[in-house]
């Protein structure tokens, strides 16, 4: 089986390196960072931290170099999904493509370029240490399922879940993966936007004076999920409190805070902005998520 990882940053590298340890999977990675690509091709893709792995991966910054693949895993930042898929769609004419990106709205963008799409949500996290070397910070499960409007066949979903699980990335193939996706989206939207605006860590966001605000933001997300008929697999509020524990991720700076501190564009459109947009489509107003979106958009311009 041939799998291509589109966007080989921290999360993409966790999938690529682990899959690159399997004998029956040929792994390709597409990324625009040439030094990273060269290092991967020279010495393999290395992970350290939660697991020590060196995977065999063929990396390229040239989309034309990608051969036809049975499966794709999209792990770019959400704001780069469209450009990356436009460049690489040719490799998936006969394949299924799974988004493991943050938030909601990426599968819709992937489906503009390929026919068979898989919805995905992943919890493992990492950070790039140097070209060819990624720190694996936290382990966690991945949930995948067919993206209804352009659904991949269930056998492809199962094949991807099986390969990832065998490679050390526990992955669940579900008929409906929306519950996991919206649980993580609701959690992320509250934690990321409030952290980005206040400069505080996840654990601090879960405390006064923003605790009630975080819960109100999550309640809006729940209402939007309800209106779509989505049953959350777990409680985002419980997840929020769990992550806020001192022995879990109290001091973690959510990625949107890291983005605004570095002056980068954020994923706000795919988090709070997506809750507002899906809410509008289903007749549910989400005024706090809208306000947070407007504020973060303003901060991106500052």
């Amino acid at each position: 089986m041939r799998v291509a990882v589109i966007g080989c940053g921290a999360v993409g590298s966790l999938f690529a390196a682990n899959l690159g340890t399997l004998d029956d999977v040929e792994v390709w990675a597409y990324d625009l960072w040439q030094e990273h690509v060269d290092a991967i091709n020279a010495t393999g893709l290395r992970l350290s931290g939660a697991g020590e792995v060196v995977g065999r991966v063929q990396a390229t910054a040239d989309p034309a170099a990608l051969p036809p693949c049975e499966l794709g895993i999209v792990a770019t930042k959400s704001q780069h999904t469209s450009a990356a898929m436009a460049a690489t769609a040719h490799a998936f004419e006969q394949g299924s493509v799974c988004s493991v990106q943050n938030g909601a709205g990426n599968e819709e963008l992937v489906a503009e370029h390929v026919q068979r799409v898989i919805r995905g949500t992943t919890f493992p996290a990492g950070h790039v240490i140097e070209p060819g070397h990624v720190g694996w910070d936290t382990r966690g499960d991945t949930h995948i399922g067919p993206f209804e409007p352009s659904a991949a066949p269930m056998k492809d979903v199962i094949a991807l879940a099986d390969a990832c699980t065998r490679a050390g990335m526990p992955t669940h193939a579900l008929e409906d993966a929306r519950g996991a996706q919206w649980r993580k989206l609701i959690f992320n939207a509250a934690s990321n936007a409030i952290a980005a605006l206040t400069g505080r860590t996840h654990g601090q966001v879960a405390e006064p004076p923003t605790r009630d605000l975080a819960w109100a933001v999550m309640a809006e997300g729940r209402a939007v999920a309800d209106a779509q008929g989505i049953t959350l697999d777990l409680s985002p509020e419980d997840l929020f409190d769990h992550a806020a524990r001192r022995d879990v991720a109290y001091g973690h700076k959510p990625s949107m805070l890291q983005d605004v501190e570095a002056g980068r564009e954020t994923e706000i459109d795919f988090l709070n902005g997506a809750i507002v947009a899906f809410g509008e489509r289903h007749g549910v107003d989400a005024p706090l998520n809208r306000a947070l979106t407007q504020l973060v958009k303003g901060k991106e311009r500052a």
Partner: protein
Amino acid sequence: MAIERVCVIGAGVIGSLYAGHLARDLEVSVLTRRAEHAEALEADGLRISGKSDFTARVRATADPAELPEFDLGIVATKATQLEGAVAGLTGRFPGATLMTIQNGLGAEDLVRTRGDWPLLSAVTFMSGVRHTDTHVEYELDTETWLGPFAGTATYEQAQEVEALLVAAGLRARAFPDLRPAQWSKLIFNATVNTVSALTDLPHVGAFAARDREVDLGNLVHDLMDEGKTVAAAAGVALHEDPWEMNVHAVRRGETLAAQGHYAHVPSMLEDVRAGRPTEIDFITGALVREAAKHGVPVPLHTAMYRLVKARECA
């Protein structure tokens, strides 16, 4: 009352602009927070540049016990430093009238706990830039609005202070009741200051942009609508529509920017950038408390209040 002696309490940008202009014709004393600030003012005088250009002699001290008698006291501290500054006036200066110029609501009530002086409420739209302890640039030569507070002073007294400020080269306007103007500015400030403090944006064109749903101007508009609902419930007919004030200020800022001036940085953004406590409790906090008093839900201002409080701790 014949006003010949003025005391300015608090020598930040706004206090310095009053002190400097008034000291050209009147006897002016200044109460500073820091002793070295007072010493510098005594030694060098107070230079005003920009829209005005002169250096004035003022008496200055950081010790309230050393303040000479005065007829008019202008309380120009930040709202966060008001309590400490007026503590030293407790029970003294019985013949004086005091004027509060703090942002938000509640300064007059706080001053009243220290003495039964007649009080004038004031809001100012002036702005400036502090270059040194003894040099302040007069940037926006906009008006100070003032009026009697809750029957403690008269409209005539307000008019007298208006005439004094105008004679000193400042712009001022007396009102029989300041609440409509005070609330217009309260809603304006509760919105513009918090949005600016959270986004890091000076008061620029984005605050009035409403082309797309995600544009910041929509949030500004929604926050102002919430504030207007509170004003209506409190029985205050606003003097000016805060949204119009916002659009006007943004356009004015764009004109100044085209002439090479910097965009106006609201004080709450200056405070969070400097890691200082903000005036959030007197501005948005006051609005949220008024809303609760009148049973008006203000979810957006409540959210802004919590976000700014959290940003203060970061």
